[in-house]
């Protein structure tokens, strides 16, 4: 664990979370959510939880984003907030 690295990723995480929740275009929002997933995966790796990082990379950043995009393409892309 490297504390400065830790702090930087955590701040990026908060930024990514806020942006992905506030973008009105859901497809962009889903992509930024994918970025959030990869940042958090990086964080797990940095904290020594490699198995969790691996799972997060495949599940959180990969499959979740694909599922979001599949749903958004089948419903509506714009959101009111």
């Amino acid at each position, binding site marked *: 664990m490297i504390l400065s690295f830790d702090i930087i990723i955590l701040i990026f995480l908060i930024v990514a979370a806020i942006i992905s929740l506030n973008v009105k275009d859901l497809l962009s929002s889903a992509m930024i959510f994918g970025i959030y997933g990869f940042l958090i995966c990086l964080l797990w790796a940095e904290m020594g939880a490699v198995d969790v990082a*691996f799972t997060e990379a*495949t599940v959180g950043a990969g*499959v979740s984003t694909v599922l979001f995009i599949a749903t958004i393409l089948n419903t509506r892309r714009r959101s009111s907030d």
Partner: protein
Amino acid sequence: MNPKIFASIAVVITGIVLLYGIADFPTFGDPRSPANSGVEGGAPSTSLYYINESYGDTKVPNLVTSVLADYRGYDTMFETVVVFAAGIAIFAILRCVGKDDGAVISAPTKNSIDGDHNRIIVGMTCRIAVPVVQIFALYVVAHGHHSPGGGFQGGVMLGASFILIALAGNLDDALGRFSEKSYMALASLGILIYAGFGVLPQVLGKNFLDYGVLQKILLTDGPEMARSHSMLGVEIGVALTVMSIMFAIFANLSSRGTLKGGL
């Protein structure tokens, strides 16, 4: 009530409760914290036990795998059941057999920028990538004992390779390789393998999931290697279920339950 005001109140109250609890936490990264080395009055720390003894018990160097698949294997079995249940719930919600809802579901028109040339490039790349992804996924499943990885990660990657086929070509291609019948059967089979490794020791007179006694069947030298091999079997079961369900969820979501057309 305006949801924003309600949300703010709920968030502030929860935040205060959580921060109140944080105040007396051990310092971040402290190896002597209760979680990392136990407290007085309780049983010896499980964490230290796993680090010190699990290699002797199971001969698996990756502690996460040995804890996941053996000591807490019961959890992992139900985690697989959760995935299976989610898959079934999604089929129950979305799947509509033979009912063509023409009004709502029309095969989405392909993007105009996405001409034939792009499809050839994407298709060829995919054709090269998919076998590599699958081989790597199998490696991840099999090598989970020695390096990060295991049934879940490998299973999700295998599922993702089929999702890749569906995304690059179309869903029918992917379903031609991995049909509805086969993913249902494989998903059930995966849990059956896992639970089977649990029931076999019961037949041999030990408790559920007590792999050590399987040395009689697996013909290993000593219960440790029997545990190690059984964990591999269990991981394969997990991988099968996760692979099938991940692909099935995508197939149902992308085609709104018709399993035709796709994205």
